[in-house]
């Protein structure tokens, strides 16, 4: 990381100022932002847990407990249990949601009403790094969400999941997915205003969830070919399919270079959009 040395004036006749300027490196400032965000998150940990866990819990509860009880059990493709389909899917959606909830929605408010981002924007580091900190901290929350949801689905009674985890691929998929989720959050947070928040749910959250290969592997959509092609614009598809390849490879899934590669492209695109949006919102 670039250092930012505080240089003395070369042409000063009176080099000693009354106010000693503290030499600041970008790294220290960036770290300060992370420490602040960690503190704020630790204070609202209950809220974090609730917003992370309830949705996937209700999902497995209804589909893996209630449905079989009422004789409406759902199966995955072939002989796979529905739990096997759901495990990577629910981890994927937990990661993606966190990006919107932890980065996107708070930013919408901070820019529009509270202006509390002001002090961090005035910190002595490039604006793009303040934006990147948002992505990174959001990604960490996404990773935490993944760590919570994974065992919950895996050990849910009756889930009947038989994972064959590829740890290296899993870590790679999670890192890329979490950063992409943070980037999506930044793009939403800088591109939308508070009046549009309900639309964020209708136009982004719900479509990407339902059409994100959470409840079905992408390959099984071959019978609805147009839909199979259409949803390729949805980043969640690549997260679900990538995690499927890393957690339950017995089920059909996209080859990992495809899911990972496309996700890196989409994530970079969202990151670029978010950084540009952040700069535009911050600079006049």
């Amino acid at each position: 990381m670039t250092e930012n040395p505080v240089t003395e004036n070369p042409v000063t006749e009176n080099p000693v100022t009354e106010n000693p300027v503290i030499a600041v490196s970008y790294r220290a400032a960036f770290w300060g932002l992370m420490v602040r965000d960690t503190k704020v998150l630790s204070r609202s940990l209950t809220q974090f847990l609730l917003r992370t866990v309830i949705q996937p819990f209700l999902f497995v509860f209804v589909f893996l407990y209630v449905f079989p009880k009422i004789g409406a059990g759902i199966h995955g493709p072939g002989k796979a249990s529905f739990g096997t389909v759901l495990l990577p899917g629910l981890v994927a959606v937990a990661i993606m949601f966190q990006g919107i909830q932890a980065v996107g929605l708070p930013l919408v408010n901070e820019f529009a009403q509270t202006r509390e981002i002001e002090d961090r924007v005035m910190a002595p580091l490039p604006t793009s790094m303040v934006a990147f900190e948002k992505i990174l901290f959001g990604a960490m929350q996404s990773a935490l969400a993944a760590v919570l949801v994974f065992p919950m689905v895996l050990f849910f009674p009756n889930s009947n999941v038989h994972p064959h985890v590829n740890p290296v691929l899993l870590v790679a998929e999670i890192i890329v997915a979490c950063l992409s989720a943070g980037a999506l959050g930044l793009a939403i947070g800088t591109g939308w205003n508070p009046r549009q928040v309900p639309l964020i749910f209708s136009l982004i959250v719900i479509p990407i969830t339902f059409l994100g290969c959470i409840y079905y592997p992408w390959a099984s959509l071959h019978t609805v070919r147009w839909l199979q092609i259409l949803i390729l614009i949805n980043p969640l598809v690549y997260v679900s399919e990538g995690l499927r390849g890393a957690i339950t490879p017995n089920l059909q899934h996209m080859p990992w270079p495809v899911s990972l590669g496309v996700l890196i492209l989409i994530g970079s695109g969202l990151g670029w959009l978010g950084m540009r949006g952040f700069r535009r919102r911050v600079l006049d």
Partner: protein
Amino acid sequence: MAGSAAVVVEKLSKHYAGPPAVDAVKGIDLEVARGEIFGLLGPNGAGKTTTVGMCTTRVVPTSGRVTVDGIDVQGDPPAARSRIGVVTQFNTLDRSCTVFENLKYHCRYFGMSHNQAKARASELLETFRLADRADADVMALSGGMAQRLQVARSIAHRPVVLFLDEPTSGLDPQSRIALWEVLGALHDEGTTVILTTHYMEEADQLCDRLAVIDHGELLVMGTPDQLKKQVGVATIVRLSLEGDREAAVAGLVPLAGVDRAEVVGDEVLVYLAEREGPLPAVVQAAMAFGLVDLALTEPTLEMVFIQLTGRALRD
């Protein structure tokens, strides 16, 4: 020379494409010396906030240059930010953090260690009489306290130049005076302060030098006294007379040192070119017209502004 001045503004302009297209700032030049309290005085919409925005890395100039402590603000915004403190017109306190944390994390952003940041935050809470509110939610602070906290935060990293945009607007008189004291103390410590205001008294009492800005242009710059001298008179004598006021005016105008005189309401106003010299002669002449009461007033910055723009500052 850029090296000796705290802030140098050169041919600074800001054009907003709109619609409507606006030239918010039109080629401003100014230089603020180290340790000065410098005021940008002008009505709302004059371009003061935009000018401060360009000095503090938040507004990108259309053309021109700003140098703070020798650093080109556009060329190296992070280095510029490490040298400035900013108090905006809005409450920008971090609502997710307590009073103490607002100061502590600000210090962290500016590179202090955990312990240094805590020590500095505690010290500032004492100085700004906020110690008993350390753990309070910032939303629970009164307007005056929130403003004090914002000022405390802005100087926490010991900036070379402190920018305050309309720092006292919306404050009650007590908080306003408290803020003036704080700025006075910072001035004594050698901090350069640049503030914008549309309050004449504030500019007059607080600032070493002033620039009057209107419609994005710098109209005049100087010490408050220099500016008031521009009005062309040093002192205004207000006379209450029992006798004929019109006759008094005619009798007073020819006196040496009297610039002009006029009847305003029940009084006769006599404008003196010098502060004290002509006064005895004026008083003596006024006696002949039944002098009842007499008051001396200084020319105000309001008069300067009216003279420059043909309208009052708070129109």
